[in-house]
């Protein structure tokens, strides 16, 4: 089963790191195949940032994202550029602190930024909160895999914080699921 996950937000939110971690989790710890790509370019500096991960049980042949089925949106502009046209079958995880709009598809709201700032004390882990949320929502990779991937992707000394953020994200979603 091929999943296409699209992450978007603005520069500095760690959109790309989140995507890499997800890809890593799938490819190294879940025995799946994964391709991670991202948008480069000077435009990426100020404005919207985007990265995508394709995860599949079979080898990934065509590596470009066609129709994502999972969206992770962390800014209003990111929503407008990369999320607004999400098809009805998709699922979107939204940082509701940052995004006003809501899509036509199924979506989950996560107050990732404020949770990161207030509960965890570091706004920069909002992306990991989102990652936890998306894994909990979709199960696109296993919990064990994402934990391992987070652990070996974050700077030394920040493992605990990031793990807490990941779990916080999972929890926020699971709480919602009745």
């Amino acid at each position: 089963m091929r999943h296409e996950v699209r992450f978007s937000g603005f520069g500095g939110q760690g959109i790309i790191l989140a995507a890499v971690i997800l890809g890593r989790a799938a490819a190294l710890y879940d025995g799946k195949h994964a391709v991670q790509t991202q948008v480069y370019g000077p435009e990426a500096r100020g404005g919207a940032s985007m990265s995508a991960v394709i995860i599949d049980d079979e080898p990934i042949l065509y590596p470009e994202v066609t129709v994502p089925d999972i969206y992770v949106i962390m800014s209003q502009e990111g929503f407008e550029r990369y999320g607004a046209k999400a098809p009805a079958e998709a699922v979107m995880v939204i940082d509701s602190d940052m995004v006003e709009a809501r899509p036509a598809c199924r979506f989950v709201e996560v107050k990732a930024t404020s949770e990161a700032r207030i509960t965890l004390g570091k706004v920069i882990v909002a992306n990991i909160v989102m990652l936890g949320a998306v894994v909990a929502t979709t199960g696109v990779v296993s919990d064990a895999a994402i934990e391992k991937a987070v652990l070996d992707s974050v700077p030394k000394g920040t493992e605990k914080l990031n793990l807490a953020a990941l779990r916080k994200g999972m929890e926020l979603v699971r709480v919602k699921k009745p």
Partner: protein
Amino acid sequence: MSRVEFMQGNTACAEGALAAGCGFFAGYPITPSTEVAEHMAAKLPKRKGVFVQMEDEIASIAAVIGASWTGARAMTATSGPGFSLMMENLGYAVMTETPCVVVNIQRGGPSTGQPTLGAQGDMLQCRFGSHGDYSIIALSPSSVQEMFELTAKAFSLSERYRVPAFLMGDEIIGHMRERLTIPDSVEVAARRRLEPGTLPYTAGEDGIPGFPTFGQGYGVHVTGLTHDERGYPAATNPRLHEKLVMRLVHKVESARKEMADYVVTNPGAEQVFISYGAPARSVFQLLHDRPGEEIGHLRLRVVWPFPEFALGEFPDAKTFLVPEMNLGQVAREIQRHTDVPVIPVPRLGGDLHPPAMLAKALEASR
């Protein structure tokens, strides 16, 4: 034990070079190849290798050639604009038979074009971009794993044949992350040393002279001028020039079979895709999506010297479809070697051929 990573193509390329024993890297940053240099900058100093950022690409390839003469396995990495600047010194490497690996992570051209998007627009440039007649080696990876493998292979071929080898990648493969398995060790051919008593440019049957490493008492003179077997300038002797250039071309072209590296799928097919680099991925997808149909696929991992005999692997071919991220550069070469209609399927702009586009070309060609 081999290592498994989730890695970017460019980083995999650097890892491939390191695995192949690359001990010298000189470069100048340019999108979308910069990560190759950055990874070498981080890794080489730890292995007693040398990383140096030069003042431009001309200097980068010059330093690489200089280092190669001390016996080092040496490499640079760049993209279109920087590649264009290297053309003169690449000709020098050809003329002096200096092993070196040049990575070109292709981006949209001409000119500054699309710095952050992929292309395959430099395939003819790497073949014909320097003045005069010559031949070189070029490889094109279609995955992160191949970024690693073919970089290592580029070293092997360059060392063996004493000719620049190009890793002609593209932004798509260079920037994507995939799983990469790094083996414990990689086998790389070593350049053959010059036998004492032999003139430095006397070549054996294979047309490849032994290498007189600097600093070992060979006392060799190396020049980009037409030279005799002693290496001395002899630039006004027409037949000597002819002989020299013919040897330089011949040593590569006559080894086409030896160097050939391609993958054949469905040899009985009438419609055959020929691809290299990123567009191979679109072809894979198409073939996967149409399991019932017999569609052929010739995927070149070594593009130059062009293995024209590989066309013969498809005896029933009625059309060759050639998806490239350019206006049909390798398609031109294919046209020279076959009477079967060759249909370029060009794609410009930086994104891959969608499989549907290939399907359409396939229908149209029926």
